[in-house]
């Protein structure tokens, strides 16, 4: 970063963002606010059934009611936090699992590297949702198995990135110098590579997070999600789908929320990735 970029006031740096990215950040901030304040924003008990089934919006229910007479707005407010939390946990599990596996594989030498990356290849070959399905039925549906299943199925993305960065760092003169000085693979992995993969991992996290959120919704939609009672977006979508003719609002509310948040996250992740490839390309020259 140049001195000029550091001293530039914050306002112009914000103005440098294009309108789509600004919209994306706005959506994220609103979603985070709802996630944290959800229980206080809810106007009704999100779990309470009532006789007013599939009511249109208005009439004391801001977004109407669902097939069980539950208030859609309140469910949405509480569900936002749940969906974001499960999605973020899954992406975090994937990051840690993938990065740690790759670092261990790279530190312990070629045979172990080949063996561990064969496992990575295996997970990569199975279509994600199907892998998660098998995993979840094996460990009983529930929050824990959903997060773990998605974490494992997305871990290869992080493992591949870590290995690529490791190899990139290994080609740098300073790691070569460290090697000459007698540093082993493990030391190089911990002292030299680990501090340098942060950016790549964060970018990958931004790309994987929306996919985890969507996957959690798809799993809930298929009836294998976190819980049949908690109003995560996917669960709301699943319960509203059979009634989409009578109560399209009950389906539309969670699907718009899901789409807006995943759209915003993907826009930011993509911008981040582009920035990273630009800077690495420039610094390579």
């Amino acid at each position, binding site marked *: 970063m140049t001195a000029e970029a550091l001293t530039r006031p914050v306002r112009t740096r914000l103005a440098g963002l294009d309108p789509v990215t600004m919209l994306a950040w706005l959506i994220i901030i609103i979603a985070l606010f709802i996630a944290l304040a959800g229980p206080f924003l809810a106007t009704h008990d999100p779990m309470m059934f009532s006789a007013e089934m599939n009511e249109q919006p208005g009439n004391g229910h801001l977004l109407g009611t669902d097939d069980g007479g539950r208030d859609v707005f309140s469910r949405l407010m509480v569900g936002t936090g749940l969906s974001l939390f499960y999605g973020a946990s899954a992406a975090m599990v994937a990051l840690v699992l993938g990065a740690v596996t790759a670092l261990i594989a790279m530190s312990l030498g070629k045979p172990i590297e080949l063996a561990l990356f*064969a496992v990575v290849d295996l997970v990569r070959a199975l279509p*994600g949702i*199907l892998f998660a399905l098998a995993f979840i*039925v094996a460990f009983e549906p529930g929050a824990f198995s959903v997060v773990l299943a998605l974490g494992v199925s997305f871990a290869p993305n992080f493992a591949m990135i870590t290995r690529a960065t490791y190899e990139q760092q290994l080609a740098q003169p300073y790691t070569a110098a460290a090697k000459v000085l007698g540093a082993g693979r493990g030391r190089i992995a911990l002292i030299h590579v680990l501090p340098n993969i942060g950016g790549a991992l964060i970018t990958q996290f931004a790309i994987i997070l929306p996919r985890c959120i969507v996957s959690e919704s798809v799993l809930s*939609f298929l009836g294998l999600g976190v819980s049949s009672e908690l109003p995560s977006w996917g669960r709301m979508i699943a319960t509203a789908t059979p009634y989409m*003719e009578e109560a399209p609002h009950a389906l539309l509310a969670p699907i718009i929320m*899901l*789409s807006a948040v995943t759209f915003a996250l993907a826009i930011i992740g993509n911008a981040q990735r582009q920035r990273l490839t630009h800077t690495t390309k420039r610094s390579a020259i």
Partner: protein
Amino acid sequence: MSPHHFRLAANIGLDLLRALGVAVGIVVFTFFVIRMIPGDVVDVRGIEGSLTYSQQSAMREELGLNKPWLTQFLDWSGMILTGDLGQSARFARPIADLLGAVLPSTLLLGATALAIGIVVGVTVSVLAVLFPRSVFVPVVDFITIWSITVPTFSIGIMSLIVFAVWLGWIPAIGNFLVPALILGLDTAGSIAKALHEDMREVQTSEFVRSARARGVSHARIVLRHILPNALTVTIAIIGLMLAGVFTGAITMEVVFGLPGLGTLTLQAIKGRDYAVVQAIIIWLGVTVIFANFVADTIRKLINPRLRTI
């Protein structure tokens, strides 16, 4: 055999070995993970009340579910090797029949989506490079961003609300065209992203500059020099995307109420029919691995620099 051919053969042979290894891994992994599921198909039918206790144990005996896991595994892998996928306990039919009944519709959906994706993706990318000031450049940007940011799951449900409920243009259950278009556009975006980026990169290379200096026309440069060089990446992307297209097809089937692999998977999971779930995962996994192997081989045939030995 020249050393060149020998190295190529060794390369492909090594890839094949690796693909086989991963396939065996999938078979073993699937068997043991599925065995960890508490309760079996006989339990489910017992709870449903359709079997008495003695009938249940007779059924376990017949299905071999009371033998130790290792024996079950050896029996079963022997069967798989001979191409016999076993019997579905829930549907009381051979699994091969069940798969055979649903595969055509899933394959049709996946293949249609892939065809739409390849045709649209390659066409708009090539047109965008051929005519750099035309509308095709924003079109490439649009479908690229679309495929990155809009998951097929949410767009599928939204189009159900709009086209089936509000406009009444399509039936709410069993529409084929809309899911195929949604998956196709998604695929087109991924292809266009890779192909367009790559073509633009090749455009700046030395041999393109020298061709330009020799007075070769822009169209000829794009079609004869840039496109063939960029295609290897696209072939690899298509191989890698196959898993995604299948996953998408499975989700779309459930959303749009189409019969197929997705619907069968769900029924099998809910009925705890391990044997069917197992067969589906293995079939899909092996298909994807094989497709990746073929894509890899084609790339290595086209571009010798990619060969690892």
